[in-house]
């Protein structure tokens, strides 16, 4: 029977009343049981620094009711000026990632079996302290090692201070290197990576530097390229010399496609034109450079100088035949370099990650020297570190002194660089006895995923009885740990964020907690301080800081007293400061440190935009004050080698593809994130690269003709196979790849967690001078998966 109209209305009335009641209850009489998520909607914004990659951009968090809902660029940051890259924006997905560890875990089952029990921070730290205490008691303080990924500023100082006071020489860096530091150290006597004044440059010629992808600060390149300057400078023209049609190459005004491994030949071919047509800066070379003309060495022998080496060996036609770059383009590029005042030549990984990487890097950099673009506005310069107060002088007891004096587990390194230190460490540990390294701290590193030799790392980790990981995620290496002390994310902790080396001025950003910790965990910095306090004695004296915030505040007193620079400010303030300091003026804005500090925190950092371009020490710190084109130490080392190598004499090793492996592997970084962190942020997995149809699944780029010949079409899952190993990826047909190459992104994993790491296929060769691996000498084949 159907209800009558009256009955129906009656029911509706009752239901309506209930709905109305429940509705108002939420608004006016919210009770504790009411969990409909009513919130007052209190909103605030805080400046901080992004710590995802080395660029350390300025960010601003929008916080609603204690939740970080948006990350935007900080308009006050001198470089980012309101912009930030997609990784920075997606940081909220790192903070609120569902797989973040909730707190410390202690392994209960076999290693790698994934059996854990939860522990309190106190218990976990106690475990570390007991272990370390017993090492010190046994006089084996050097059995502690720290493996750290990219680590700059105070965190780096903190680890080193801890190890020094503890008594271990084993700080092992797993950060990626581009080899430029070794070049600068040899030629200029200045041991630091160069800075690039891209914005004030007229022409930027990049030899394989991934400016828009995985450079020190892609944002710096975006800002310069977009001409988003403070209105003072025009946009530079960008020429990209690259073996593959990279994102940088695709947006450059000119892409010079080049055969792998021939960048140095092209650079010297350009030098040939500059010298032949007398387009180089003869005045600069005469004043500041040694080794350009023939010279007499320390033994009194007459040696051939740069000019005659280049004029003899790099005739344009020959260079063209080797590099594959047409003669006209070589000539026109050389002329453009000479005309642009100033121009900058940037040297990237593609040059230095090769068997002759150091010599190739010097050849490319010699263009900057010839053009006199050193320490000039718009050229290359050497930056300074912000004038922070140092940490307290470490107190060393007997154990510390003895331990620090021992040989590091990774060995002494290579004659001109510490390249691949992490792998050397792993090899040494794997070859040694169990317990040689007793305790390993893993900080911002995940070698089981990112290393080219995960098997070596597995063997090494088996030899280490106690592994502590500080990762907030259960990554491959962390799964292998005995104790996990998850770090907080960048939005929940204090840390300083010094600008990367590529900045042409000083900037010291400050990351601070913008929200309460979302998951349990301890900031690793605080953990170090706390372990030091519990160990007591000289360790406690060496790290006498209450908290990281207190430590940073103490160090910032150096900035306050420096009588230069300012806290981050707007465009007007930036220009004002620059103009004042150019005229030798500086006005104090704060009468006391507390107001300085509070403004520094509010604005997200401190900067000094002024760089003295007139200081001769900015060109060379060598004894003779000149830039050495033929550094004696290197020349001597090459002579001792007995292969007839000299700087600027390029020996191109004829490479033959091994039978059955017809394609050359060209690995490249999609971003500066080396350990596959990209997969963590889901928004980024949807847009990892330039291809709108490539999402989630790691890919390799293949020329359409190659794809046709192999019968492997777009989208096919393939095995990329070398003599050393294989991995799975999806084939992407891309005409920007040369027929004989396979371009393989590094730093990705499949949605199921399977690592797709092309470095595992590498043949293991490298530059013996720097220890850096060679990335472009491996041949592969593709098989249907």
């Amino acid at each position, binding site marked *: 029977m159907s209800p009558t109209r009256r009955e129906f209305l009656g029911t509706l009335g009752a239901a309506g009343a209930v709905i109305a009641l429940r509705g108002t209850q939420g608004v006016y009489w919210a009770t504790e049981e009411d969990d409909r998520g009513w919130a007052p909607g209190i909103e605030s914004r805080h400046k901080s620094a992004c710590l995802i990659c080395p660029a350390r951009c300025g960010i601003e968090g929008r916080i609603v009711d204690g939740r970080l809902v948006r*990350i935007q660029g900080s308009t006050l940051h001198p470089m980012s000026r309101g912009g930030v890259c997609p990784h920075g924006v997606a940081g909220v997905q790192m903070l609120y990632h569902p797989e973040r560890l909730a707190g410390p875990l202690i392994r209960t089952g076999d290693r790698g079996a994934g059996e854990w029990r939860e522990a309190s921070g106190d218990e976990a730290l106690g475990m570390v302290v007991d272990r370390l205490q017993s090492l010190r008691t046994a006089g084996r303080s050097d059995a502690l090692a720290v493996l750290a990924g990219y680590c700059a500023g105070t965190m780096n100082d903190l680890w080193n201070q801890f190890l020094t006071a503890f008594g271990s020489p084993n700080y092992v860096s797993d950060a990626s290197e581009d080899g430029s530091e070794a070049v600068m150290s040899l030629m200029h006597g200045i041991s630091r990576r160069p800075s690039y004044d891209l914005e004030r440059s007229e022409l930027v010629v990049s030899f394989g530097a991934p400016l828009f992808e995985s450079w020190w600060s892609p944002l710096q390149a975006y800002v310069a390229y977009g001409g988003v300057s403070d209105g003072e400078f025009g946009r530079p023209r960008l020429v990209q010399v690259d073996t593959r049609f990279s994102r940088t190459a695709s947006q450059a005004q000119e892409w010079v496609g080049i055969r792998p491994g021939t960048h140095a030949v092209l650079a010297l071919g350009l030098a040939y034109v500059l010298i032949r047509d007398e387009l180089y800066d003869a005045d600069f070379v005469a004043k500041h450079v040694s080794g350009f003309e023939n010279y007499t060495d320390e033994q009194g022998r007459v040696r051939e100088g740069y000019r005659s080496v280049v004029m003899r060996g790099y005739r344009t036609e020959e260079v063209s035949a080797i590099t594959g770059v047409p003669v006209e383009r070589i000539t026109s590029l050389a002329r453009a370099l000479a005309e642009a005042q100033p121009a900058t030549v940037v040297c990237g990984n593609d040059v230095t990650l090769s068997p002759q990487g150091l010599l190739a890097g010097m050849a490319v950099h010699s263009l900057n020297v010839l053009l006199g673009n050193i320490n000039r506005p718009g050229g290359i310069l050497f930056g300074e570190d912000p004038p922070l107060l140092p940490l307290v002088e470490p107190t060393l007891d007997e154990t510390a002194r003895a331990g620090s004096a021992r040989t590091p587990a990774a060995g002494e390194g290579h004659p001109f660089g510490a390249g691949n230190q992490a792998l050397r460490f792993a090899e040494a540990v794997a070859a040694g006895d169990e317990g040689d390294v007793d305790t390993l701290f893993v900080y911002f590193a995940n070698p089981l995923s990112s290393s080219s030799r995960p098997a070596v790392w597995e063997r090494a980790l088996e030899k280490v009885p106690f592994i502590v990981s500080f990762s907030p995620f259960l990554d491959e290496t962390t799964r292998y740990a005995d104790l996990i002390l998850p770090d907080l994310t960048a939005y929940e902790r204090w840390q300083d964020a010094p600008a990367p080396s590529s900045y042409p001025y000083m900037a010291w950003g400050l990351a601070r907690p913008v929200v309460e910790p979302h998951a349990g965990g301890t900031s690793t910095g605080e953990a170090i301080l706390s372990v030091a306090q519990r160990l007591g004695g000289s360790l406690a004296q060496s790290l006498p800081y209450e908290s990281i915030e207190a430590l940073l505040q103490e160090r910032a007193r150096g900035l306050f007293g420096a009588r230069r620079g300012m806290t981050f400010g707007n465009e007007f303030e930036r220009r004002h400061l620059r103009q004042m300091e150019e005229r030798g003026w500086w006005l104090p804005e704060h009468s006391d440190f507390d107001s300085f500090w509070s403004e520094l925190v509010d604005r997200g950092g401190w900067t000094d935009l002024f760089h003295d371009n007139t200081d001769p020490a900015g060109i060379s710190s060598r004894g003779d004050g000149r830039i050495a084109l033929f550094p004696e130490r290197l020349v001597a080392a090459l002579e001792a080698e007995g292969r007839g190598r000299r700087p600027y004499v390029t020996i191109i090793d004829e490479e033959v593809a091994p039978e059955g492996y017809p394609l050359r592997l060209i690995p490249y970084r999609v971003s500066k994130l080396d350990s596959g962190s990209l997969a963590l942020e889901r928004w980024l997995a949807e847009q990892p690269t330039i291809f709108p149809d490539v999402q989630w699944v790691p890919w390799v780029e293949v020329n359409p003709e190659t794809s046709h010949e192999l019968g492997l079409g777009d989208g096919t899952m393939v095995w990329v196979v070398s003599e050393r190993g294989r991995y799975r990826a999806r084939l992407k047909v891309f005409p920007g790849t040369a027929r004989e190459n396979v371009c393989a992104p590094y730093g990705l994993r499949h949605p199921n967690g399977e690592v797709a790491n092309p470095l595992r296929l590498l043949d293991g060769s490298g530059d013996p001078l720097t220890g850096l691996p060679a990335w472009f000498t491996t041949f592969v084949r593709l098989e249907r998966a």
Partner: protein
Amino acid sequence: MPRWGMVIDLDRCTGCAACEVACKSENNIPTVSAEQADMGRALSWMKVETELEGEFPETRLLFFPRPCLHCDNPPCIKVCPVRATYIDEEGIVGQIYARCIGCRYCANACPYTVKYFNWYDPEWSESERQHLNPDVSVRPKGVIEKCTFCHHRLQKAREDAAAEGRELREEDYQPACAEICPAGAITFGDLDNPNHRVHELKEDPRAFRVMEDLGTEPKVYYLRPRE
């Protein structure tokens, strides 16, 4: 009455996709599974499309950030049987999710393919819900969604300006994509206001609109790359 529009300088775009991710974060756009993404079901109100020409080594690649073009004569609103998609008096083409019946006529009518259909309920874990923007509603399964020029920001900016007793300024209202672009490629403002940068930029000799011959009158202009 303002007429909101955008100018995207293709000469400055580096294809970094900050605009895309900023849009997703601002507008609570969910991700779909890898398999669904393969079927073209990922949602991206702002999408950096690419155009590739030529063969190695004479290859050319153009990045083409594509929001909703907010046509003055939008084909999508004409086919909507329930008036879920509409154009307001300031030229913003919006979508009323509660009205949408999921017929997808508008998605098919849009020549620029900027309308996205929710084939599934959005998946946000308990933890991820924390970063949802409270100013933008989360869409359910079965409705169309699209770029709104972040019009929730306009509402807020108007209220703020009114509270301070002043006119709305250009910088008060910027969508997330324009705000974040590190290369300064995206400019947003009132096309009819001579004090706004877009007013001048749209008259640039490099300016063009996509598929202008359709008569859709899009309010997103592009600036050709310089040769």
